[in-house]
Structure formats: structure tokens, C-alpha cells
């Protein structure tokens, strides 16, 4: 299936001619060709949390390289999750993918569709992966019972709340179900005349489809299958109706942006916020008030969808590289590395044993909020792993926005978006024949 692209000699010639003056102009800048020696691997990663992650990742990899003489990993920062995926896929298209990359877990079907992923099931089973990984995290890289990646930096949305505001409003604890959420949001709104000075609740925009899947799950619906989405089901429509109710009650902001909503919370213009666990450290250190973290309120059950992603290993590379890549991925997800990574970033350590280390226990004592997201992870699963997931997300977000703005009824919005998403999924599946 993966025929390599024929090379067109005329264009290569043209290319060489064009490159010439620049090559001579800038000596020493062209990177050297592959030398023999250690196995060289490229690892492309996005920055999820803050600038420091770059430093942390770079140090982790320097540490790995110093401990493994036969392997040399080059860490390549590749922008946001979307940028990383684009960079990897563009390289895949020319038959030259990096050895490993770290995308969002929703992209699993996209990469499988490109036949890009090495099947890790057997090597993982002969290791302790299946025993020690937290199943909810491991499963985000599983399709049809086969494992295609090692979960590295999972996150889920959680409910952040302003403890000072709760105290002032006389609310003792974070809301635990949808009705309490509505009531608390109503009680926390501050108005002056027609103007809202403080919202009761903001659902972080830009990723509100992620939160919406969580609401569906809380209402007992996993809103997608491998090749279609189910947002037209009554459970989903009921979830959106509940959002609409909170907006109509004047308790929840009808729209927001991802960056803006985090600012709003830290500036105190919303009392509650649905945002990623990945923001925990930033929220704690930048807010001028006490920050509470709670489970997202439930309906029928607790529920959340996982953000963040697994380390995936390219199929198209030599066996030596695959072996080295596995060594690296395993090291990155080993007990101590994961414990340190989780502490530094707010992401959730993927191994049970990581949570049992002394340093992690000491951290949880100091920052008990970190425990919340971990406990909630038990009720979480992969996020919208369908082909064409990126278009699916945008179509869904648009439908949610239009409903909140009052342009369209919840059921119509979801039915329309659902049909459109399924048509796009079919369009991609048609290629696979």
C-alpha cells in the first residue's frame, strides 16, 4: 500500500541548481548526513502546558541519551497538537516520518488510516505495560484490541472553582450533579443592572466539544464509534439542552475562548470553569484567590473524555530503530519519570506505581487538588477517536456555538452536525475502500 513516491530527476536537478548558491553562501549550516554510530531517533512533541515543558522535555531526553549509549534521541518541538500532527503527517506523505511523535489521542484513527503506526501489543504484553498502566489511560491508544501507543501525558477536563467566591456566596462544596451545577452557577452570578460582572460558570471555549463529550458520557452515552458519531441520540440532546438552560438562566457564558476563559477565571470574572487538568499549575500559581478542583458534576454517572496523548511509534523504519524507539517510549513512561513529569506539569502519571512513589505521595499531600483529576480518570475514556476527527470537532463546536447563541434549537443543531460529521467520516473511509 505504501508505494514510495517516484523521484522526478528533472526537479531534483533543478533543486540542486537552486540550492547551490545558498549552500556555498552559508557553510556549515547544512546538517550533516547520517553517520554510523548510535541509532538516531526523532521525537516530535507539542507543548501542552507552559514554556517550561520544553525545558523539562529537553532535560528528560538528555538524561535518556546519557543513560543509553546506543541510542540518540532528538526532541523536536512541533508547536500545538494540531501543528505537531500536521508536521508528522506531512513527513509521512513524503515517506519520511519521525521515529516517534506525541499527538492528541483523538488522532488514533487518522494515523491508523495512513497505516503509520507500529503495533505494540505483543511487545507490551511481554512487558509490564498491561499490568501497571492505568487501564483508562492505556485504552486511549487501543483500536480493535491492539495497542498502538503508550499513553504519556493524559489530561481530562475538571471543574475549577473560586473558593473565595463560594465562601462569599455561602456554598459549602462544589456541585456534584447537573442540577446542583445550575443552582450553584445561578447563585454565583454577580450582576450590575444588565451587566454581568461575574459569570457563575464558563465552559472553556475552543475545547468545549471536549467538555460536551464529557457531558454525554455523564448522561450514559459514549457519543462515537469507530466509524461514526452519535450526537443525535437523546442523551446528547438532553446534555445540550442543559447547557442551554444554564445560558438562558444567565448563569453560564454563551461563548468563550480557551485562552480567554483561563484569564477570566484567574481575573475572577467567572466563579467556575471547565478547563484542562493541564492548567492546574498555572491556575494555582497565577490566581490571586484559593482555587478548588472538583470532578465534573454527574448526571447518571461520572464521566470525562481524555485529552493529551500517547507516544506513537512509526511503522516505516528499521527494526533497530523500532527497538530503540520502544526503549525510549518505555523509559518515558516508566515509574519515576512519569511521577516527576506529572508533578512538574499537572498531567496525570500513567502508571499505578508512579502514584505509589514517595515523592508523588509527598506532592499529593501538598497539592491535594492533583488527586481529583486522577480519581476522575477512572470514569474517563478516549476522546472522539473517529476518522476526520478534526473536522468532526469543528462541526460540533459550530453547532454548540449556534445553539448557545440562540440561533437554533439543540436537537436541530445536533441532528444537523451529526449528519454532516458522518458524511465527512464516510468521505475519508471511502478512500480505504
Amino acid at each position: 500500500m505504501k508505494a514510495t513516491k517516484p523521484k522526478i530527476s528533472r526537479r531534483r536537478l533543478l533543486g540542486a541548481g537552486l540550492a547551490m548558491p545558498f549552500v556555498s553562501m552559508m557553510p556549515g549550516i547544512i546538517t550533516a548526513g547520517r553517520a554510523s554510530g548510535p541509532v538516531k531517533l526523532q521525537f516530535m512533541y507539542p507543548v501542552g502546558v507552559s514554556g517550561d515543558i520544553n525545558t523539562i522535555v529537553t532535560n528528560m531526553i538528555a538524561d535518556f541519551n546519557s543513560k543509553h549509549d546506543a541510542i540518540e534521541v532528538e526532541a523536536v518541538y512541533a508547536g500545538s497538537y494540531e501543528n505537531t500532527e500536521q508536521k508528522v503527517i506531512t513527513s509521512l506523505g513524503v515517506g519520511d516520518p519521525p521515529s516517534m511523535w506525541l499527538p492528541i489521542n483523538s488522532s488514533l484513527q487518522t494515523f491508523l488510516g495512513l497505516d503509520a503506526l507500529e503495533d505494540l501489543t505483543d511487545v507490551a504484553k511481554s512487558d509490564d505495560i498491561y499490568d501497571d498502566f492505568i487501564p483508562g489511560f492505556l485504552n486511549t491508544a487501543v483500536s480493535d484490541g491492539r495497542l498502538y501507543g503508550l499513553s504519556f501525558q493524559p489530561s481530562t477536563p475538571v471543574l475549577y472553582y473560586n473558593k473565595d467566591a463560594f465562601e462569599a456566596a455561602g456554598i459549602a462544596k462544589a456541585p456534584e450533579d447537573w442540577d446542583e451545577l445550575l443552582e450553584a452557577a445561578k447563585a454565583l452570578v454577580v450582576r450590575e443592572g444588565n451587566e454581568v460582572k461575574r459569570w457563575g460558570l464558563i465552559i472553556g471555549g475552543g475545547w468545549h466539544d471536549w467538555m460536551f463529550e464529557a457531558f454525554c458520557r455523564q448522561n450514559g452515552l459514549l457519543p462515537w464509534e469507530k466509524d461514526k458519531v452519535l450526537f443525535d441520540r437523546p442523551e446528547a440532546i438532553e446534555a445540550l439542552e442543559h447547557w442551554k438552560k444554564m445560558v438562558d438562566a444567565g448563569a453560564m457564558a454563551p461563548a468563550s475562548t480557551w485562552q480567554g476563559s483561563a484569564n477570566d477565571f484567574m481575573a475572577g470574572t467567572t466563579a467556575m470553569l471547565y478547563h484542562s487538568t493541564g492548567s492546574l499549575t498555572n491556575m494555582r500559581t497565577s490566581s490571586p484567590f484559593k482555587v478548588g478542583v472538583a470532578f465534573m458534576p454527574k448526571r447518571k454517572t461520572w464521566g470525562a473524555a481524555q485529552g493529551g496523548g500517547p507516544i506513537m511509534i512509526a511503522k516505516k523504519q528499521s527494526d533497530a530503530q523500532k527497538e530503540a524507539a520502544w526503549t525510549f517510549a518505555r523509559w518515558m513512561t516508566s515509574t519515576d519519570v512519569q511521577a516527576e513529569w506529572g508533578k512538574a506539569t499537572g498531567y496525570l502519571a500513567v502508571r499505578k506505581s508512579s502514584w505509589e512513589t514517595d515523592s508523588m505521595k509527598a506532592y499529593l499531600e501538598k497539592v491535594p487538588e492533583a488527586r481529583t483529576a486522577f480519581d476522575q480518570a477512572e470514569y474517563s475514556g478516549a476522546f472522539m477517536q473517529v476518522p476526520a476527527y478534526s473536522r468532526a470537532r469543528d462541526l460540533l463546536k459550530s453547532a454548540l456555538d449556534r445553539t448557545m447563541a440562540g440561533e437554533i434549537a439543540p436537537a436541530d443543531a445536533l441532528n444537523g452536525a451529526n449528519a454532516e460529521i458522518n458524511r465527512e467520516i464516510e468521505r475519508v473511509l471511502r478512500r480505504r475502500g
Partner: protein
Amino acid sequence: MLHRLSRRARGGWLHFVMLPLAVLWMSPMIWIVLTSLKTRTEVFDPAAGLLPEVLVFTNYPATLSVAPFGTYLINSILTTGSILICQLVTITLAAYAFARLEFRFKNFLFGLFLLQVMFPIYSTFLANFVTLREMGMINTLPALVVPFVASGYGTFMLRQSFRQIPSELSDAARLDGCGHLATLWYVCLPLVQPTLIAFGIISVVTHWNDYMWPLLVTNSDSVRTLPIGLGLLAKADSGADWTRLMAGTTIVVSPLLLMFIIFQRRFIDSFMHTGVK
């Protein structure tokens, strides 16, 4: 220069209008610099006020520690400089041909030059990525330069200026026995200096801030540029790292501002006279 006699009066009037407007325009920059000197909690604390309580200069070294900004700075200078030099050569030659020479297909060819500005740049990324890869140039500095060597934009801009040069001037030079290239060099180029400077500033600013293309075609720190370092601070799950993002912005903008202040002095006086009295 409109009213040299009443310069003082005009100056007073001008400042009266311009000063408030300039302050309004500057306010985001003032905010950027102030924020770069705050602590993290101060940014969002409504009680904190506009000015930082203590000036936190540590945000600057903390920003620089995120990525090898020194290397990035050198690479940014190298790529924007190379692009500018190449562009000045290609657009001068082409614009002179379009403005001063007669040849077949002139309008058609000019239209072809404009295609570059009309086609959305992101639509060229895939094909250009493949081309550069076949040239073996992925992950090198030249990959950040070669797609921008020719500039339809610059050619158009400069052509308009060349056509503004009174023909008496160039005709005189031609009659003195100058060839086209000599006329171009000794007569036309000095006259359009302000346009060249304006184009230069715009080109440098544009490519200095390029983000998507460098992100796509480079992998190693040794060939990456400043905006990628800035991206590390801005594009985050958790909301931006405000204090350091603003410190980084100040760092990235400063060299440009310095360049602008130096070169805008060149917009002092017109060299040109119609010769009509």
C-alpha cells in the same frame, strides 16, 4: 513642508492632534512592557492596578531559559537578511524591466508576478515542502529563504516608483550614453531610495515574524528562529504564560524597532524635481 512659513503654528496644531492619537496607538505596547515586569499573580489580580508593584526583571532571563534564544536570534538575522538581499536584487531588476522596457507579453508576465501575492501562502506549503525535501534542504536555513527570493509584491511596489521618475531624468542619462543598467544604477535607484527602504522594512518585519513555515520545515534548534521560541510561551493548553510571553515579545520586537528608528530618518526630503518651473 506644506507651510514652511507657519511651521511653528502647524507644529503646534500637529502635536495637538497627533500626541493623543500616538498615545492611544502605543497603549498596547506600554501594556506589554508593563506586564513583562509583573509577577504572575499580578497580571490578573483586579486589585493590583496597572503598574507593577515591584519591577520583576527576572522575567527576562526566565524567558531566555525556555529555548536557545541566542541561536534563534542569529538564525533570524541570517534568514531575514538573506531574504532581503536576494529580494532587493530580484525586484530591482524585474521592476526596472516592467517600468522602463518594452517587450512582448509584458502585461501577461506582470500578471504572473502578481499570482504570488494572490495565491494563499498556506496552499503552497505542501508542494514546497516536497520540493525542498527533494533538494535535500529540509531542516536547513536556506529552506527558510528560497521560497521568498522572488517577490511579486516588491516588484509591483518598485515598478510603481520607477514609473514615477520623470522621464526627463532618465532620458538625459540615456542621451549621455548610459546603458540601461547604468541608468538603473546611477539615476533610478537613488531616486527610489525611500521605496526601497519602505520595502526593506516591510520585508524584514514580515519574515522576522514568520511562524508556520519555519515550524514546518525545521526540526533542530540550530536552524530555528525567534517566533518559534515565542510560540513555546503562547500556544499552551493552560493559557499563555503572560509575563514571559510579554517579555519574549519585547525581546523579539526591540531589534525591529531599533532598525525602524534608524531607517525612517531616510524619509526626510524629496530628491525629485519636475524641472517644470
